């Protein structure tokens, strides 16, 4: 009756509970799946699945060759898109953060402004882009610079909305009693800002950036459609499709994906370095 209670675990259970195996699987499984997908694609299985010909949906090998052949031109466009994305991201985040600081220091005036900025988040980019293009018409005589300005403005507005909301949360959602503790030392608002609110908001900045980085790339790409000057990865995709050069278009799509992935990876690395101490 009173047997030893050493349970026998099934192999399945053991795999589930072994931490090392689980971490390894987190890497292995998606990679395997990706390789499988590429193989299927190369064999034409995806094409038959979607009932498309290899003209509109070229095989990976073809895309690869086009990429390597036109690498210089492609990189030129990539540079254009990336410049727009990063400049807009930087400027927008800075301004957005400033708005959030203002709103947190003068809540009565700032909060309404913040709701308006938040509403800007919901404005479709397709509404913003043409307006910006219009507004920058007089900016400079050079069409390239004008378009650049318009595109950066679009990305900037999108990032302002995103960063200000998240930064505001970071500046104001402070653990209870921290503000009381500062009050105990009769700390002036400026000091509280520097020593409590701003450090507290750093993780929230990264939360905002996680959304802002991909969305700045998307905004850059979309604003390229409406810009005057024909440059940038997104525009190239459209131009090539219009000219029925599908393989080149796909090459640019791959380039766009890579831009998004690379920037995001950089962000994650930055985040792990800067937030390492906090845990």
């Amino acid at each position, binding site marked *: 009756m009173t047997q030893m209670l050493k349970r026998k675990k099934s192999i399945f259970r053991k795999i589930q509970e072994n931490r090392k195996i689980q971490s390894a*699987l987190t890497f292995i499984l998606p990679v395997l*799946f990706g390789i499988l997908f590429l193989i299927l694609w190369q064999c034409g299985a995806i094409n038959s699945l979607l009932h498309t010909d290899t003209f*509109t949906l070229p095989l990976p090998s073809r895309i690869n060759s086009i990429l390597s052949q036109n690498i210089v031109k492609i990189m030129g466009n990539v540079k254009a898109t990336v410049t727009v994305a990063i400049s807009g991201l930087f400027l927008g985040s800075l301004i957005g953060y400033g708005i959030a600081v203002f709103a947190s220091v003068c809540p009565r005036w700032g909060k309404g402004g913040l709701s308006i900025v938040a509403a800007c988040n*919901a*404005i479709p980019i*397709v509404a913003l882009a043409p307006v910006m293009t219009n507004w920058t018409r007089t900016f400079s005589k050079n069409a390239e610079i004008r378009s650049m300005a318009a595109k950066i403005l679009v990305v900037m507005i999108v990032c302002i909305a995103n960063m200000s909301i998240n930064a505001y949360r970071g500046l104001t959602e402070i653990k209870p009693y921290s503000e009381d503790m500062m009050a105990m030392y009769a700390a002036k608002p400026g000091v509280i800002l520097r020593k409590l609110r701003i450090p507290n908001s750093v993780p929230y900045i990264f939360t905002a950036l996680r959304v802002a980085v991909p969305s700045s790339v998307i905004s850059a*790409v*979309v604003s390229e459609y409406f810009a005057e000057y024909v440059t940038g990865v997104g525009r190239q995709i459209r131009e090539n499709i219009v000219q029925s050069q*599908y393989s080149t278009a796909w090459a640019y799509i791959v380039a766009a994906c890579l831009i998004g992935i690379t920037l995001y990876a950089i962000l994650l690395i930055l985040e792990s370095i800067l937030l390492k101490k906090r845990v």
Partner: protein
Amino acid sequence: MNRLLNKKWFSVVFWTLILVVAWETGAFLVAGTKRTPENILPHLYQIIGAAFSTNKVTSDQTALQIVLINAGQTLLRAAIGFLLGTVLGFGLALLMKLSGIVEKIVFPYLMLIQMIPILGMAPIILSITGSINTSRIIIAAILTFYPVATNTLAGFNSVEKEKHELMYIYAANKFTVYTKLLIPGSVPYFFTGLKISAPMAITASILVDTLQGDGGLGCMLSQSLKHAMSIYVFWLIIFFSAFIGIFSSYLMGVLELLFTPQKHAERKKEGK
């Protein structure tokens, strides 16, 4: 004065007024220096005037009619794509929670989707499907799908350990745990996803319109831009889409209150 300052809406009204003043000032400046000021920054009253005027802008429609009729088309497709994306996103989140294998495989690709400029893929998807309606729906669905899936999954994972243990003590089966705990517990997160994706679905639909000219807001937008019709159509569409984007997000918020009666109650308590 202080009491006025403290009212919730005061700040919003204040800043709206500042924006309006800034716009009008800009419009005056532009009117003074440009030949065709309406292209860049028309006066707000001019835009409002165009909305209500009965002048026919094309062969048989006023500006307002153009906007509303095309809006109907665009929004319908956006709505269908939105619904599709929501259902798929929710389903995927459920699957990912049920199976660790599925979660591990799908998660990086889910992140990949977010990093890819889907809107940039719009032309390709259009050429694959050949039909502008289908591609509108597909793209809106993909854009909705990601925020809904990730937020819902976060919602599932946010349920505290103790609640799981409570269900365990009563030997609840998996179905019960999902229907009584995980799904209701994920509702706030689910709606966050909806609030984010609703405007995006609309954006997607409008954008696809611009690629091919057979009606829809985006199409009218680009036509108006190229002066095929009055520029005021352009401005009306801009304001309308901005408004609709904001409104759709707000609508999701209202829907959320419907599904979370406890929020009403909590507000009542705070009100006291």
